[in-house]
C-alpha cells in the first residue's frame, strides 16, 4: 500500500460545530477558495467533507435554540451563525466521551480509506475540527504502521492546515495533547500550518475578540527533539473581519487560499 503522487489529491475538510446540517458546505467553500487562487497549476484535486454533525445532534439542540432566539432581533440574524459556531465549538470540544471517540474513529477510517485508494490526502480543519484532527493525526503517527520519515508514500496525510483553532487554550491541554508525536529521523518533514485571525474569539478564548498578541500557538507543540520531523508554522492572518465574524471569515481569505494551494501542490 502506497500513496501515488500522480493520483487526484484529496482535500479532506473537517468542519467545526454548525447550527444545522444545511450549513455543512465547507468543502464547497474550500473548493471555491482553491479555484479562486490556483491559477493554471497543473493539478487534479477534489474536496470532500468529513461530516460529524449528526453525531452531535443532541448536544447541538441547545445552540439551535439560542440561534432561534437571536433570530428574533434583526442584528441576531447577522451574527447568529458565527455566535452559535463559537459557543458550540468551545463547549462541545471539552467533552471527551463516547461521541468524541466516535468522531475520531470515523475520521481515522475516512483517512485510511483515502490512503488505501492511493490518493494523497491533505486536511483542512476548522475550529473544533482541528482538535479531532490533531488527535487522529498523532494517533496515526503513534501506531507505527504509517508515517515512515523516509518516505511520504507511507503517509496517510500529506499536510495539515488548521483554521481558527482553539488548540492553544489551556482547556484543551489534557493528557497527550501537549505536544505532537515525533516522527523519528528521516529526510521528510510533515507540514502543519496553523492560521488564525488575531480577533478570532475561539482562538483567544476571549468572548469579546480582544486582539491576541504573540507569535506562537501550534509551534508550542514542537518537542524540540531533532528527530521531531515537523514543520509547524503559525500564521496570523488579517481576514478583514472583527470579533465573531473573524471566526468564519477564513473560507474567503486569499491568504488562506494561497497557503492551501502551496500545500496541496507540494
Amino acid at each position, binding site marked *: 500500500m502506497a500513496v501515488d503522487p500522480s493520483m487526484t489529491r484529496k482535500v479532506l475538510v473537517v468542519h467545526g460545530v454548525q447550527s444545522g446540517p444545511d450549513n455543512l458546505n465547507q468543502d464547497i467553500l474550500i473548493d471555491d477558495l482553491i479555484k479562486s*487562487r490556483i491559477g493554471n497549476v497543473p493539478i487534479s484535486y477534489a474536496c470532500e467533507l468529513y461530516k460529524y454533525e449528526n453525531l452531535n445532534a443532541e448536544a447541538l439542540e441547545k445552540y439551535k435554540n439560542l440561534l432561534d432566539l437571536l433570530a428574533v432581533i434583526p442584528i441576531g440574524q447577522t451574527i447568529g451563525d458565527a455566535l452559535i459556531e463559537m459557543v458550540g465549538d468551545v463547549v462541545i470540544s471539552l467533552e471527551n466521551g463516547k461521541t468524541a471517540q466516535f468522531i475520531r474513529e470515523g475520521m481515522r477510517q475516512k483517512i485510511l480509506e483515502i490512503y488505501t485508494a492511493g490518493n494523497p490526502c491533505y486536511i483542512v480543519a476548522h475550529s473544533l475540527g482541528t482538535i479531532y484532527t490533531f488527535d487522529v493525526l498523532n494517533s496515526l503517527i503513534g501506531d507505527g504502521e504509517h508515517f515512515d520519515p523516509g518516505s*511520504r508514500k507511507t503517509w496517510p496525510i500529506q499536510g495539515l492546515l488548521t483554521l481558527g483553532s482553539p488548540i492553544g487554550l489551556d482547556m484543551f491541554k489534557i493528557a497527550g495533547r501537549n505536544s505532537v508525536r515525533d516522527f523519528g529521523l528521516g529526510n521528510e518533514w510533515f507540514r502543519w500550518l496553523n492560521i488564525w485571525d488575531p480577533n478570532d474569539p475561539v482562538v483567544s478564548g476571549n468572548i469579546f475578540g480582544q486582539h491576541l498578541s504573540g507569535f506562537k500557538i501550534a509551534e508550542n507543540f514542537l518537542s524540540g527533539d531533532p528527530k521531531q520531523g515537523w514543520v509547524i508554522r503559525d500564521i496570523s492572518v488579517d481576514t478583514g*473581519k472583527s470579533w465573531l465574524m473573524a471566526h468564519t471569515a477564513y473560507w474567503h481569505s486569499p491568504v488562506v487560499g*494561497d497557503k492551501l*494551494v502551496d500545500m496541496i*501542490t507540494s
Partner: protein
Amino acid sequence: MTRINLLIITFALWVTAGCTNFLYQGEISAPDSYGKERHFVLYWTKTDPFIGMAKAGPAILLTECSNATRLDFDDQPEGIVFRGEPGRDRLPGQTGSVALNQICGKITNYSTLKEALAGLLTVVIYCQPMPKDDFAVQSRNYLAASPEPYNFQIIEKQKKWSFFGETLEGPPVPDCRQQ
C-alpha cells in the same frame, strides 16, 4: 422605542466592528531562483478598526510561471520575515536544506506589516529552493537570493469602509509569458 433600541445596537456594533479594509500591492520584474527574468507580485491586507488595534498580513509573494509557490512574510520577533522550510529551501552554496525557522527573506524597511504603507518596500532574499520531490507539481521558485534588496513600489490598491469588515480579494498570479 424599538427604533431607538435598534439604533443603539447598530451604533454599538459599528463602534466595535466597523473598520477600514486596505489592500496593498507591489510588482517588480527581477531574476528568479533559476536566473530567469520574472514578474513578481507582493500583496497584503490591513484592517483598521474604528476602536482597537489594527491587524495586517501576512504579505504573500507570487511568482510568474511558478503558480504553486506562495511565500509568506509575516510578523515575527525578528521582523517581517519569510521563514524557510527544511526539505524545501537551502542557503546558496549548500546542498542540505535549511534548519527549522531559518530566516530566508526579510522586509527590511518596516518592523511590522501594520506600519507598512504605500511607497517603497525593500525585500531581501537569502535562500533558494531545493530540487522538487515526487509530490511537488512544480519546482519551487521565488526571487533570486541576493545581498542587494529588491525595491517594490507599493500602492494602496483598495480602501473600503464597512460596518462589519470585508475580506478583500487578492491579486491573481501573474500570467506566464515564457516558460
